[in-house]
């Protein structure tokens, strides 16, 4: 019997692949590079200590020793069945993944396709509640578009997770990717992996990096906004995953004020930036700052809408948000919006609310 009484659409769940599981989805010679040449993706994060089990919830490790997030049955038991999720959107553990991989684009492209196929076969087609994200190696743009065309039509793929690189997302380089996503009714998702929040380097402490992740999100929204992406692709939506939400009023006010002064530079903007954000940008809630109900309601009032926030747990990561405890106790109608309906209204490919 699920514990949670209102529907939950969880907008950030991390499934995780291990190299040995992805091999069968890779063609040669990529398989050879991994099996015989022991290739693994280079990672850079200098801090592996944040919590009791690195960046995972210590109780989410699979009992047989496999890492958290790598087993559907365990995830069903600990998360989906226990809480009673109606929908969960997978965002991967990004490793191995094309994100932040420089050089050797061929490998990045091959990995993205293999990952997508693995995700579909082992998760999306095994649990009707789970929906997925298309992974692409955006550094090879043409290959990325091909992959969106190949995988995008899958009925359970709801967004493209765009890797973060040193080209800002408003840059025309990405526009053909946005066009492909829009064509397939896919939204664009941003989830940090190894983002350049600190002028391309890592700060000395994890706590600095983790505190500043919202700045990386603010930069991409601002870039897409003033480069006219939202006007050029009116059916495109942007889901900002795990980057915070308390900065939203600040960014809206700041962009509106700048727009009033400097509109002449970006005449292609046909709506106020805050209006564009309300219509095309959404934010997942985790990791939620600890706000009182009064503070939370005042924040919504400052945003001028209660339709931008979408609940997420970030399971199985260390900073998981519990649906019972992470947000203040809200009135039922608002709860329904934040916990399910806002996300459902945002992703065109999510099914309608279950009756009954």
């Amino acid at each position: 019997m699920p514990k949670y009484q209102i529907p939950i659409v969880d907008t950030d769940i991390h499934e995780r692949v291990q190299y040995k599981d992805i091999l069968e989805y890779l063609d040669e010679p990529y398989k050879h590079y991994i099996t015989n040449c022991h290739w693994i993706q280079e990672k850079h994060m200098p801090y592996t200590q944040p919590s009791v089990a690195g960046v995972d919830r210590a109780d989410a490790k699979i009992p047989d020793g496999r890492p958290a997030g790598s087993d559907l049955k365990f995830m069903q038991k600990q998360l989906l069945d226990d809480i009673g999720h109606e929908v969960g959107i997978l965002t991967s553990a990004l490793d191995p993944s094309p994100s932040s991989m420089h050089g050797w684009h061929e490998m990045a492209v091959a990995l993205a396709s293999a990952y997508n196929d693995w995700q579909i076969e082992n998760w999306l087609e095994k649990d009707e509640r789970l929906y997925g994200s298309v992974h692409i190696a955006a550094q090879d743009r043409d290959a990325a578009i091909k992959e969106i065309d190949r995988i995008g039509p899958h009925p359970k793929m709801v967004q493209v997770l765009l890797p973060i690189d040193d080209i800002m997302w408003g840059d025309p380089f990405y526009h053909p990717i946005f066009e492909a996503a829009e064509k397939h009714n896919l939204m664009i998702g941003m989830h940090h992996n190894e983002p350049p929040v600190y002028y391309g380097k890592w700060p000395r402490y994890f706590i600095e990096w983790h505190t500043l992740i919202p700045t990386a999100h603010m930069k991409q929204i601002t870039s897409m906004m003033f480069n006219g992406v939202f006007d050029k692709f009116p059916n495109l939506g942007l889901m900002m995953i795990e980057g915070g939400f308390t900065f939203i009023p600040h960014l809206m006010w700041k962009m509106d004020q700048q727009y009033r002064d400097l509109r002449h530079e970006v005449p292609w903007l046909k709506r106020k930036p805050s209006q564009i954000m309300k219509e095309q940008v959404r934010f997942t809630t985790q990791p939620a700052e600890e706000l009182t109900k009064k503070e939370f309601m005042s924040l919504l009032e400052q945003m001028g809408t209660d339709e931008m926030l979408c609940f997420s747990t970030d399971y199985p990561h260390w900073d998981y948000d519990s649906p019972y405890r992470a947000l203040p106790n809200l009135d039922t109608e608002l709860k329904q919006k934040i916990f399910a309906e806002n996300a459902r209204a945002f992703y065109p490919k999510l099914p309608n609310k279950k009756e009954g």
Partner: protein
Amino acid sequence: MKEQVVCKTSDIQPGEMKETSFGRQEVLVCRTPDGNFYAFMNQCIHQGAPLDKGMICGATTDKSKPGSYDYCHEGEVIRCPWHGREFSIKNEGRMLANPSKKIPSFKVRVENENVIVYK
């Protein structure tokens, strides 16, 4: 229920902790390196994580200076399995970062190798 034997002293080595039950409540019994026993509610006061899935460890202290760490209290700190908040076993289960908050605790005594939790 006023008191209950929750385990034997030999069930928990110094520097370890264990989940037990006291009536219908899940209780975390901790044994510090000096051999003493302490009992807390086995649920984190932040978002409710099961504390027994975390770790018992030491902690960097407020004697640390920028860039130089002071670490002690080995075996006297519970660290939550989710967000990693630290609680001092010997200081009434108070949170290191915010000592005004504490994990509810139970009284404990040892009699004939039995660990007894009571209110």
